[in-house]
């Protein structure tokens, strides 16, 4: 077990090094994310100017929400995929992974976390720095206090783990379907919507909010971002962390069990 953890850490480190090489991709990503960020904020600005009554979340909070969304896109977007793993499975290179003395759930998990972490590290700082310097009303605001900030970081990290455990299920499904597109598109559309990537969850009609609250997707994006802006108070944030941990446990267990049963009857593709 101890040696396994070392291996996971090692693959994590290697994937991180690899990921940090892709500077051009990060630059292109940053440009796109600014475009989306401005667009979203302008839409909300227009919406708030003309809206009647008070909204469930303030424009200031929405703006922080949008910038965080853009800065940590690689952290939270389900549609970001590691083609390496898909190729491993569909081309049969997976054969090598089977010859290693360690379980691959943890191995892939570490790889995927590292991939997202390296992508986000390259992107988040430039976006956040610029977002803090922008003129009003686009400027991003600091969290109300230090405790809130700590809670934000904790929930963001656990949220990442929850998200990766969801995406692990997608990778595992490729063993059966042999094509990533089907399961990927279905889950990522549902996931994107219910994680508040399209409309922040507080702005959804209440019946939709209910559904969203029962699903794990919001735990990776919507929840940490609202904690940041103080929209979710500290005591509820603590409850949120417990929910995150519970989901993480359940998702990892499902993933491990299904991977085990699949690998028993696996066929490695190709000669």
């Amino acid at each position, binding site marked *: 077990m101890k040696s396994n953890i070392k291996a996971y850490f090692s693959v994590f480190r290697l994937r991180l090094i690899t990921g940090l090489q892709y500077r051009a991709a990060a630059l292109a990503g940053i440009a796109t994310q600014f475009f989306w960020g401005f667009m979203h904020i302008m839409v909300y600005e227009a919406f708030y100017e003309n809206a009647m009554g008070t909204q469930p979340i303030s424009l200031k909070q929405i703006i922080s929400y949008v910038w965080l969304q853009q800065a940590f896109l690689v952290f939270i977007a389900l549609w970001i995929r590691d083609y390496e793993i898909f190729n491993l499975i569909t081309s049969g290179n997976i054969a090598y992974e089977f010859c290693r*003395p360690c379980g691959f759930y943890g191995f892939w998990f570490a790889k995927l976390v590292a991939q997202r972490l390296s992508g986000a590290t390259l992107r988040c700082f430039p976006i956040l720095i610029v977002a803090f310097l922008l003129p009003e009303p686009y400027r991003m605001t600091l969290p109300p206090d230090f405790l809130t900030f700590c809670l934000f970081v904790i929930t963001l990290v656990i949220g990442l783990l929850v998200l990766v455990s969801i995406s692990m299920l997608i990778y595992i499904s490729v063993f059966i379907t042999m094509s990533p597109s089907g399961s990927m598109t279905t889950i990522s559309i549902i996931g994107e919507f219910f994680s508040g990537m399209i409309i922040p969850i507080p702005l959804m009609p209440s019946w939709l909010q209910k559904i969203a609250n029962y699903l794990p997707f919001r735990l990776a994006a919507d929840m940490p971002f609202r904690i940041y802006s103080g929209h979710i108070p500290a005591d509820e944030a603590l409850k949120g962390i417990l929910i995150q941990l519970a989901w993480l446990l359940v998702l990892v267990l499902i993933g491990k069990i299904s991977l085990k049963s699949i690998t028993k009857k696996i066929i490695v593709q190709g000669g």
Partner: protein
Amino acid sequence: MPEIEVEGLYKRFKVAKRSAGLGQAVKSLFHREYRIIEALNNVSFSIESGEIVGYIGPNGAGKSTTIKIMSGILVPDEGKCCIMGRIPWKERVAHVKNIGVVFGQRSQLWWDVPVIDSFELLRDIYAIPQKEYLENLDLLVSTLELQNIINIPVRQLSLGQRMRCELAASLLHGPKILFLDEPTIGLDAVSKIAVRQFIKRINREKNITVILTTHDMNDIEALASRILLIGKGRILYDGDLDYIRNCFSTHKTITVNFRGNKPQVDTCVAGISGVNVISCSEERILLDVDTRTARVTDVITILSANLDVIDISIDSQPIDELIVKLYREYDI
């Protein structure tokens, strides 16, 4: 007790059957027909420690399937397989620490980072103690001449360089058994020879058992004293290469360069049974001698008596032709 013992292995694959064309594709959405392929059909053999065994057979004969079962990747439908006292697919983690595997058509190295990073990852995966790792690495780097390529990203290596690194990667943890699935595929002559020499050396010096599948019969000739021939999922021959050579290599080719004239040549060898003229020109004749009916020495005696011979060369059948014959003989 032999190091590797395989007994009565069966493996069947279900393959979706579909003819070409859109109509068939649409039809198969609703109704799929399957065909059962017997990849392995009662395969048995045993291998002692320190042997080099060449595992040969045409494409699709079941070579890779056997290798995959022995390395714990595939579970057979029936049969026993015991390697160093373990059943590969039952005790996978303990088993794979004893084996090294190279799949010639796949890569275990990380594409975008220097080779040494992949090696260090393997060190952590196999939990190789640092001292042992450095010793193994040193030895592999010097014998495979990796000094200059170990810090280069894999994507910039040539196929030959990469294959040498793949071999090193599979041996870092000091396995007792090495499975090589087409290790020389696509390599140039120099790299092929380097790979062969290396395999020979580690077998001799570290007593590593090597099982090697290949389509290049020169690999087999250079390395393996024993061959296993598989066809249509059955083991057809298990024994040494020389025996096959004696059984099937019944023809020799004699090339003679001479001064003189053609008609004389034709008449002088036409009388011997088992000798056929392959080609004949003004100063050269090629003869095919069936050694079952004619003796090479007799043919040469007659030739030298009748011709002003400059030189003679006698060639055995190339091993590739031998194998073609062998496959034909066994109808595979």
